[in-house]
């Protein structure tokens, strides 16, 4: 008997029995248990930094569920610095949906969203969260904040659920162009957003605290750069889940001391790993977009693999600059505008090409998550750019969270053929 599946069924059954708080308690218990388990017996094959991240992400998801009165809903591209300066626990909705997949109950919540009339073409990260919201399983946060970067589908998710839960919501509109006008436009919105949060919380933003958060972020960036410099010619273990967990660190929890500690440990750990020898058979793979972390064949090939080293996903490197602590809001506005997922697809392509070259990657795998139009829509352009740069490229389709949307046979055949191709020198 699959214990996780059994547990997932309990979560589902309690929703069906109109007992959403019991389902939420099961999720909380599951997270608490996992956190305790990882504390007592971390995965031995991971270096300390990855063991730390493994537990940290469970805790970071647990906090806003545990303390909803001090939480907010955010998406991947929300301005985390301001949220942390207010001392609020963000519930990162894409991560919540991913954990539903971890509990093997994502299908149920996705279907619940569809039963409410949500289109099945909407991203499943959102459908999962909407399904949980529609069944009143989510605890009520204080407010919600999102941005239009990369994903405009998420705006409707936030508007719908914040209206349902009667919580204020701020949507930051990020223009495609980067100029004085757009910087000032985003900065103004950030000010309005801060006012909204101040009204909700009944306290002013502590500017010193915001500066501290930005200092943490800049230090984190330095550790991250040290790690990346080492990664250019070193082997370092990775798994699909850990790479997705890094999104916690590079985005929603950027600026927190825990994130800084993780990258500090990572920068130290990698020094203990060997250089990749010349003429080695190791193939270094750079991944584009999201990873279906649950997928059997991909886990088999990549998790802790010494043959196919997963270097990273491009979203973890979508903005690599430092922030100006003297002009925090302007700096955050610039960061959002310059995110390579904002604006023309060519920005994303340039980032992928630069990262592939910098990290000495041998090949690129581009995952098209169903429901994410920018990803599949831009694949022909990305492929063309890879061909121009002589970088072998594979595109695979599937769903980042919904197990039903990924065909194992298709993935296995493509992956095996691709590995044979790159091992034989084809591109």
């Amino acid at each position: 008997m699959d214990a996780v599946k059994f547990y997932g069924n309990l979560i589902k059954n309690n929703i069906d029995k109109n007992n959403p708080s019991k389902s939420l308690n099961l999720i909380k218990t599951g997270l608490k248990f996992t956190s305790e388990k990882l504390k007592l017996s971390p995965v031995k094959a991971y270096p300390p930094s990855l063991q730390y991240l493994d537990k940290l992400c469970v805790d970071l998801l647990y906090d806003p569920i545990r303390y909803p009165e001090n939480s907010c809903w955010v998406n991947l591209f929300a301005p985390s610095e301001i949220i942390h300066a207010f001392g609020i626990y963000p519930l990162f909705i894409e991560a919540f949906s991913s954990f539903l997949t971890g509990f093997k109950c994502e299908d149920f919540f996705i279907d619940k969203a569809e039963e409410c009339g949500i289109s099945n073409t909407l991203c499943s990260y959102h459908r999962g969260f909407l399904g949980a919201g529609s069944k009143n399983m989510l605890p009520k946060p204080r407010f919600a904040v999102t941005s239009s970067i990369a994903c405009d589908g998420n705006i409707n998710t936030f508007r719908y659920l914040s209206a349902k839960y009667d919580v204020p919501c701020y949507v930051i509109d990020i223009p495609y162009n980067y100029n004085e006008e757009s910087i000032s436009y985003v900065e103004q919105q950030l000010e309005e957003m801060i006012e909204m949060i101040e009204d909700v919380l009944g306290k002013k933003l502590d500017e010193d605290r915001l500066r501290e958060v930005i200092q943490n972020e800049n230090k984190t960036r330095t550790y991250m750069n040290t790690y990346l410099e080492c990664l250019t010619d070193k082997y370092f273990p990775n798994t699909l889940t850990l790479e997705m967990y890094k999104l916690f660190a590079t985005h929603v929890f950027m600026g927190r001391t825990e994130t800084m500690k993780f990258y500090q440990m990572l920068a130290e750990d990698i020094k203990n790993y060997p250089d990749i020898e010349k003429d080695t058979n190791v193939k270094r793979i750079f991944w584009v977009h999201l990873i279906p972390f649950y997928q059997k064949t991909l886990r088999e090939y990549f998790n802790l693999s010494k043959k196919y080293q997963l270097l990273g996903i491009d979203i973890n490197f979508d903005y690599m600059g430092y922030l100006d602590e003297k002009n925090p809001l302007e700096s955050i506005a610039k960061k959002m505008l310059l995110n390579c997922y904002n604006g023309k697809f060519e920005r994303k392509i340039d980032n992928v090409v630069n990262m592939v070259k910098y990290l000495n990657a041998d090949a690129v795998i581009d995952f098209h998550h169903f429901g994410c139009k920018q990803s599949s829509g831009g694949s022909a352009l990305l492929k063309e750019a890879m061909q121009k740069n002589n970088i072998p490229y594979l595109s695979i389709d599937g769903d980042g969270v919904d197990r039903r949307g990924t065909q194992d046979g298709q993935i296995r055949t493509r992956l095996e053929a691709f590995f044979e191709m790159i091992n034989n020198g084809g591109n």
Partner: protein
Amino acid sequence: MYYLGVDVGSVSTDIVLIDENFKIIDKVYLKTKGRPIKAIQDGFRELKKYKKEEILAAGTTGSGRQIAGYVIGADVVKNEITAHAVAALYIDKDVKTIIEIGGQDSKIITLKDGVVTDFAMNTVCAAGTGSFLDRQAERLEIPIDKFGEYALRSDSPVRIAGRCAVFAESDMIHKQQLGYCEEDIISGLCEALVRNYLNNLAKGKEIKQKVFFQGGVAANAGMKKAFENALGFEVYVPEYYSYMGAVGSAILAKEYYEKGNKTKFLGFNIADLSFNTKTIDCSGCSNRCEVVEMLRENKPIGFFGDRCGKWSEKVKAS
């Protein structure tokens, strides 16, 4: 002495025997019908005249390659893209593009200097695959092997919306109700499928000559003609177009043997043994792998689905 290649696809299971000179000595074509083990066993029954000792090595490919590998004791288990490319290159080393359309998937493979340099496969859409043509043949009550002849008799193909199998079917019904003849509708369907293939799978790819058209759908002369019309040059259908996966697999088995390896082939008598599978939920770690155990005469012969090798290595070791 021979080399065996088995291609277990979603619709058909093809088995070939080749000799030292790559000549096809024997071949069997069966419908898989969702029961790959039975299809292999039925095929092996027809090949019982060959002794186990005559087979120097065996290979499997196709979507059922893994299960087939356990059943026959394969030496090489390879994906169908590699197998098709190997077979095409053996026949003609100048081939630059392979159009392969099978029962439930279609592929394009690009080659340069005898190496696969790019490929694409259709995803979850069945439009343009053999199964869709089969279904339309059945609906029109025309034997599938006559589909090509019908298409070639057409002078003015009807334009069919071929982007989606569901819409293509309703469009065909609509065109029938408007009174178009079957020949023009079938020819129009072939053109629509080719258009769909070139717009989706071959999108952004330069289709360089020489082009091979292989897989079961290559039997349809109407499809060959539609590809030639669309591309403006000749498309070659190799003699054993529907066995190319199995041929490639046999060639890979030959390469395996020539490297000095011994075969694990179990012989054609496996046709008379009982095979079944069962699923085990491994509780060894938090991965909780769903392991499939394969049994021959109720004895385990293989496991797959475990990430750590705890189960799959068990059989290798014993």
